[in-house]
């Protein structure tokens, strides 16, 4: 694994921290939608959401998982749990079966 030191995108970190604090009880995992493919951003999310497992841009969220969407796009449907700085937290069933938001 590449081992570059953590380079903070402050806005992204604030989004993750806000999402972590806003997670409702009983959530089994987090599906993360990021604009662009940035592995280090995924690893930071995995670390922040621990001990919950995180999937990155899956076609469909698993039952009981929550969607954390970073960026301005908002897919139709789903229940908004919390609008966050830089993104949103959506509760399934969310219509995320298509392409991730861009």
């Amino acid at each position, binding site marked *: 694994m590449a*081992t570059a*030191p*953590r380079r903070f995108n402050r806005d992204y970190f604030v989004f993750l921290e806000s999402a972590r604090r806003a997670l409702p009880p009983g959530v089994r995992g987090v599906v993360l939608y990021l604009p662009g493919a940035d592995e280090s951003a995924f*690893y930071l999310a*995995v670390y922040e959401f*621990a001990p919950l497992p995180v999937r990155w841009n899956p076609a469909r969220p698993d039952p009981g998982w929550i969607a954390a969407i970073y960026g301005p796009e908002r897919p139709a449907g789903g229940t908004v749990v919390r609008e966050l700085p830089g993104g949103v937290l959506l509760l399934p069933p969310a219509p995320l079966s298509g392409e991730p938001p861009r």
Partner: protein
Amino acid sequence: MSPLAVSFAATGALLLVAGAFGTLAARALHPGADRGPERTGWGICLGLSAVGLSALIASLGGPEPRLGFAMLAVALLSIGWFSARQEAAGPPVVSSGQPLRPAHILLQVSILAGVLFYTARALIRPMGSIDFLAIWGLKGRSIFSAGAIPAWLSSSELAGFSHPEYPLGLPLLYAGIAGVVGTWDDHAMALLFPVFQIATLLVLYGWLRRRGTERGVALTATTLLALFEPLYSGFLTGMADVPLSLAMLLLGTALSDAIDGTDRRALFRLAVASLLASSLKNEGLFLSAVAAAVAILSGGNTDRTRRFRVALAAAIPAIALTALVRAVRGAAPLRDFDFGLISPSRFGELLGRVGETISIDFHIAARAWILLPAIALLLATGVAAPWATRQLGLAAAALAVYLALPAFAVLGPVWLAETTLFRTAAALAPLAAAGIAGRFAPAGSARDLRS
């Protein structure tokens, strides 16, 4: 007092308490009045192991880490008390009695400076290398937050990137610290790493002195190691290389003591070191196997039965721990490597990768151009002593594997060599320091060979 200051104070206090209790118990591993530095180094490891063990016990449904650590601290105290009682009836120990010269004081100040520099590098920001986030910190934080080892950490689908095949020693230590302190703080927890460095320096200096190396030589080796930035860097803080480098030194020194029969506890130390090394990284299991091979192949005055016992002490704890973990968590494949390349049908592909590996190995070795001639010169000017050469043998075996493995990397030799070779080789520095410095000990000076 800010929350960060409170966190630093609590973490520092825990590390001090764990080190103190561990040092008391380390009397069982290192009896004798002349074992101070080594005993403290080993004691720090025992104390930290108790912290990690408290998280493991809690994750298995036992008492929460604070209570678990308190109980383990009492156990360490009891071991220390019983050992002290036994020791009181033992033979008196003669001090080395070499005078302290101004140059020695200068070297001691340099060692202190090395520790302070590393402490500054380690604490300048929270631990945050990608490997910390995706592997070591992730697992530690998950165990701490869940109060258990989450099953998904063993899933190659959900957590393959975090290498489920890696041992959990360091994550459990992180979880134990957070559990005892009561909060997860990846900044204050970095205090752990200068503590690993201090333990390494104590073991190196103490062992070299006990095996007859002059104070100036031992201090010089310790100084050079303390100032060795490629190992003690901010970048490696949070990853397993620094603690593994300590465990490998424990393994190497205990191996030499056990083969030479320096004292009755040497075999026990070797078994403990084998356990510690294999709990940190898979390289620990490999090095324990190499240590067993070294024991069997060592000649000299060592009889065959002793060699066999030493080999067992080196291999059995590491193999038993690995087998136990695999039985409980399941066997996870080494996902970075494709050993199918060894098959005859892929011989051509492997040959191409070997060429690529040799090329990238030389490219990376060139970055250490100033270091390699210095090491060669020191090796050429010193005099071989078996007890020191064994350290170099272990380091050379590990280095050979690190140099060859990129040929089997799934993502290609360049990727693996670029991301791991320099830091994994740097982690061999304590073993190399012990092996090289030992070549400058007066001939036949390996004292303390009482049985």
